[in-house]
């Protein structure tokens, strides 16, 4: 009986929340003139289906196939694929123009797990590894194409939708950078679409450098005396000593141990391991200096322990250009004000800084609220309508 009552009350609370969300969204619709409510289930549906496709894979072929199949079903014909795996859709402006606005999302998911990326849906949340990230961005691009294809919206600029990859950004050259190298159009602005957090405005994003440190020590029997330190000990020692580095300006640099993995499992000596680090810095010069300090410290520890070590820089995204971003930041804040979305400053790294570095005004926007922790990851469903409206209003403002 108690269980039933709890379920009943939970059901009532959920119904009340949905009623309030509906009232809010009908107010929003009156303000914006965009009737997107019927597209929101499609947005969630595409995000779920996309999130469950395995990744990373070579050229992300399965994910790319989902995108191209959907575009074909929608009757979108102007689709171009390149050998790096980029898929570009050009949606023409209402009138003749050379200018365009680029919206892009990344297709890879480094956190994909065959089990945990399977999505579960409650009345108000979609839970699954990857949902706060790019799945929603990709789905938003597809649904935007569908919305524009239906004739519901047209803009003064051409709108380009780019499905791309960031792997190797700033180092070996990501698919996004290859696209930027070759493009010939006149880009007025660019936006990167991602899942969460809705309302975050990256006015002045920090730069980031990713390092992967692989350690190998001599293998040994568990109880052998006088043998080598384990990879866990070496990596822990590196993490500990890096944590103790005094940066020249503590507020401007931050080191994050993103992942530490070692050993072959229970009953085995951990002779191999990998640690992934991120360095964040407020400007690109400081980022490079900090990286050099980290590399020197790591090599020194490795020498002391006799471990073999390999360090790879896996990604480098520069700090954003606040001046170049300013008009877009103001436009986004204005849109947030119209839609009742709470704007708040964010300084986390932003892939749009790669475009800023080429003189292109660019900004990230997120579509809903949610949460990502070690154990759970979910997005909230009710804010999605405002999140998608935000995209349309922003395009109206800049395109």
């Amino acid at each position, binding site marked *: 009986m108690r269980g039933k009552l709890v379920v009943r009350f939970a059901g009532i609370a959920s*119904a009340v929340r949905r009623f309030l969300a509906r009232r809010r969204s009908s107010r929003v619709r009156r303000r914006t003139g965009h009737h997107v409510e019927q597209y929101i289930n499609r947005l969630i549906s595409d995000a779920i289906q996309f999130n469950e496709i395995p990744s990373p894979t070579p050229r992300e072929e399965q994910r790319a196939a989902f995108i191209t199949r959907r575009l074909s079903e929608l009757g979108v014909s102007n689709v171009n694929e390149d050998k790096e795996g980029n898929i570009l859709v050009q949606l023409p402006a209402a009138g003749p123009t050379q200018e365009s606005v680029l919206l892009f999302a990344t297709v890879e998911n480094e956190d994909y797990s065959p089990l945990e990326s399977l999505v579960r*849906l409650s009345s108000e949340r979609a839970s699954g590894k990857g949902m706060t990230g790019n799945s929603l961005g990709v789905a938003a691009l597809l649904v935007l194409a569908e919305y524009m294809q239906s004739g519901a919206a047209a803009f003064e600029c051409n709108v380009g939708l780019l499905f791309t990859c960031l792997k190797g950004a700033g180092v070996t050259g990501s698919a996004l950078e290859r696209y930027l190298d070759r493009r010939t159009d006149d880009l007025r602005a660019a936006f990167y679409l991602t899942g969460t957090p809705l309302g975050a405005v990256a006015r002045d994003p920090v730069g980031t450098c990713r390092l992967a440190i692989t350690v190998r020590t001599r293998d040994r029997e568990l109880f052998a005396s006088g043998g080598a330190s384990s990879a866990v000990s070496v990596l822990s020692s590196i993490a500990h000593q890096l944590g103790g580095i005094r940066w020249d300006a503590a507020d401007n640099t931050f080191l994050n141990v993103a992942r530490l993995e070692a050993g072959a499992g229970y009953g085995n000596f951990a002779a191999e391991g990998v640690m992934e680090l991120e360095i964040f810095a407020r400007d690109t010069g400081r980022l490079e200096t900090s990286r050099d300090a980290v590399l020197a410290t790591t090599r020194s520890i490795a020498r002391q322990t006799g471990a073999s070590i390999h360090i790879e820089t896996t990604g480098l995204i520069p700090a954003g250009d606040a001046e170049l971003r300013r008009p877009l930041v103001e436009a986004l804040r204005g849109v947030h004000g119209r839609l009742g979305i709470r704007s708040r400053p964010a300084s986390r790294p932003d892939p749009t800084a790669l475009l800023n570095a080429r003189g292109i005004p660019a900004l990230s926007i997120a579509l809903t609220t949610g949460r990502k922790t070690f154990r759970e990851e979910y997005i909230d469903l009710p804010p999605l309508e405002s999140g998608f409206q935000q995209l349309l209003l922003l395009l109206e403002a800049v395109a």
Partner: protein
Amino acid sequence: MSWKPAVLRNTFHHSRYADPRRLLELKRRSGLSISLAFPTLNEGETIGKEILVLKAELMERFPLVDEIAVIDSGSTDETRTIAGRFGARVFSSRDILKAYGSYRGKGENLWKSLFVLKGDISNIGPKFVYGLVGPLLERGEIGYVKAFYERPLRSVSGITPSGEGRVTEILVRPLFSLFYPELSGLIQPLSGEYAGRRRLVERLPFSVGYGVEIGHLIDIFHQHGIDSIAQVDLDRRVHRNQPVAALSRMAFGILNTFLNRLERYGEAHVLRRLAAEHIALAARGGGFMVQATAVPANERPPMIDIPEYAARFPPESLTAYVPAT
């Protein structure tokens, strides 16, 4: 051996039906309507996603499906709330055909779904739906389509590959080989995903428990012939791993239905009365404890024999059906 089961000729891959516009055109020409039924009991964890994706994909984007219904057996979690939230029509099994009482079981829900649904055909996951519906839309002689797929198991260590269903390979395949070699061409005869025409399914009795699938196959084979059955490769579906004890009870229910059909069609005669309880032994404190579980063998009559149904679906509109999970 050169002989091949005829059903292998009616074996397709779902990709054959992946073009939604072609299916829409086939549907328009056939004049069929399509309903999806989800028999549920505490499926709150998964039902929302299935309904949302199917509705967005196959009702809103491409209107192949006319309705989605959940027939619930009395869930105590949020199954009904979530299903309703994402746009399914939600029915309580108990409230359908009240005068005929209620049993627990998937077969019971599928039987009752015939009464509340309006359409012809059904099942889950976009490719599950178009894959199963495709042969029915494409070929008028096919009346019943069954799914088969790779069955990796979901366990604490992740997704692991598995062979075919254990009950299928150890129980059903030997029985089919002995009594119905024609049906041995079905790759996964116990798969719970299938679609059928109303005019065919309404004439089938429904076992309310585990035997519903095998009972259907034997009845369809006798009533309509092997050519009315097709099967579709749906690639992959992740299952929860069931313990052997649960599979043993399932096998008991299936065998019970199988023997019942042999009797009904005069193909064998069971000389003694069959017991109603499945007996298992559990080791306890150096000895064994008997665990007896009643596995109901109740059966619902063909829906067409129910007067309320005949009044609701007059003969000229009889062309449909639906089941699921």
